[in-house]
């Protein structure tokens, strides 16, 4: 940038230099103002919900924009949620489903990608093409048959059904990202391991640590849609015991729509832990997404 400016800067009189600096300053202010506006738009709605979840019903309606005071503080909503639902179970179910699917997507995805990037064999590019098609075709459109398959395997209302579907859904993108990274691993490295007598499986495990950034990208891309899904829990696992957070919250919120304290508390309980996790890992997540986008 600086190299670009001097021509005008040097020839300009002091007056225009000042006005140039002022325009720059004003431009900067406008930039920040726009960004601050959108940041507030992103954060304030959730904040209003969270703040009001700690208030009495009267205060929610009379002073929606105030922080709870000693008189207006109330945990009544949380007590209702505690009594009438089981968020601990919902969180446990969501965690099991999300982490298991993520693990399987990364493991199987890396294995497929390694094979596709490493070996030449008949059907190699066909397999890659079929997998890539899965990135643009939404798996939800196969729901009629997925439900039938799960019924015949007696997997309806189990977490296993969700894990299998999410793994299938996540594999295409994982393979798409990982094959590109596996192709960049230097051949010498693998061949020298082979000369030392390493098996192909050993070579695979030697190479995996070299693609860690790609694995982080895949994890960042995969984890949010799985955690947040409502479609498959609704169709494959609507039962009380297998409810995920999204499903549990949906059921609870529908049922208690008129109990404002309970609704606000349930929303807070579903949103805040995720937001905290996000703020802790946001640097890694956004870096993963940014570097993934460049591929």
């Amino acid at each position, binding site marked *: 940038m600086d190299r670009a400016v001097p021509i005008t800067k040097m020839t300009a009189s002091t007056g225009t230099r000042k006005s140039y600096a002022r325009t720059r300053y004003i431009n900067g202010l406008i930039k920040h103002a726009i960004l601050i506006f959108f940041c507030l738009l*992103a954060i304030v709605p959730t904040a209003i919900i969270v703040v009001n979840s700690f208030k009495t019903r009267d205060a929610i309606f009379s002073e929606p924009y105030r922080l709870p005071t000693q008189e207006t503080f109330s945990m009544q909503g949380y007590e209702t949620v505690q009594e009438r639902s089981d968020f601990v179970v919902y969180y446990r179910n969501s965690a099991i489903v999300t982490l298991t699917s993520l693990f399987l997507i990364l493991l199987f995805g890396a294995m497929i990608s390694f094979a596709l990037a490493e070996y030449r064999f008949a059907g190699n590019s066909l397999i890659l093409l079929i997998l890539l098609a899965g990135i643009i075709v939404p798996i*939800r459109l*196969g729901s009629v048959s997925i439900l039938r398959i799960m019924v015949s395997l007696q997997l309806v209302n189990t977490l296993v059904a969700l894990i299998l579907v999410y793994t299938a*859904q996540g594999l295409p993108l994982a393979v798409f990202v990982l094959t590109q990274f596996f192709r960049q691993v230097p051949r010498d490295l693998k061949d020298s391991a082979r000369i030392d007598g390493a098996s192909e499986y050993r070579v695979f495990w030697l190479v995996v640590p070299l693609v860690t950034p790609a694995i982080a990208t895949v994890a960042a891309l995969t984890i949010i849609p799985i955690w947040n899904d409502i479609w498959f829990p609704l169709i494959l696992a609507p039962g009380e015991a297998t409810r995920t957070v999204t499903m549990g919250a949906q059921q609870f919120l529908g049922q208690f729509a008129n109990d404002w304290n309970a609704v606000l508390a349930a*929303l807070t309980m579903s949103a805040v832990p995720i*937001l905290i996790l996000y703020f802790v890992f946001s640097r890694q997540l956004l870096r993963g997404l940014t570097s993934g986008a460049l591929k």
Partner: protein
Amino acid sequence: MAQSQVRQLRRKSFPFHILVFLAPGLLIYFVFMCIPLLDSLRLGLFATDGGVEQFVGLDNFVRLTSDPDWAPRFWSALGHSLVFFLINMLVQNPIALLLAALLASMGRSGAVYRTLIFAPTVLSLVITAFLWSLLLSPLWGLPKTILTPIGLAAFARPWLGLESTALPTLALMSIWQFIGVPVILYYAALIAIPNDFVEAAYVDGATGWDVFWRIKLPLILPVVGIVALMTFIFNFNAFDVVYAVKGALAGPNFASDTMMTFFYRTFFGYELQQPNPTMGAAIAGTSFAILMVGALFYIFVWQRRTQTYEM
């Protein structure tokens, strides 16, 4: 010598270990994704008659598009899906591009903004939908308290309850949640543009405005195309936000009914409606065909026309 030995070794042990690498993932992918998708397309050509599935050709599709029992719902759902997509496309992407350009121009100091703008994306759309339906609820009356001081009290109406505004309001909720995704994608593309290009233009006397429209935007056109395709695939299939706020009946009076809520009601059954898997499969098949048209348009028209520059 060593090379040929390695090659020989690899050839000898060729088939089995490749199978081991491929089998687990491909098995799951085929059984739970490919086969169900193909089977659904097949089912769309069948009808259940007294518990027996019979091949009926394109009958289901004819009924969907012209039978008075099905056609009104089908065409309205199709229209709503397209409107929902268009609102997302026309509102979300320009704003996202603006935000990304602003973020890219400030380098590292924009990290806090990036983090905050992306934050809603990690929430579940169901949670977002409930959150906004509370905030917009006439009972709570927050829009009124905000709009009255600036003289726009007349605009404070039950947006989610009116037939004319329900669908656009739901689309805006979805935009609120997901705008972080295109922002990050555009941002990544913009910061990847080498500084030399931009500096050279400035030296030649270009303004910031010129640089954006004549240099940066053409360079990131491939990403603009990918984001448009993603927006299409994702929003044409909108379900979560509608279901969370309006249930599967997508009220008021089906004003927010999309292809996915229509599909869900039909194949899974809802309240008084009996499940009809084959008709549901026909709806899914139609969606599938429309998505493919969009994807092929992207691949054969957009990708061919836009030049990808090596940077």
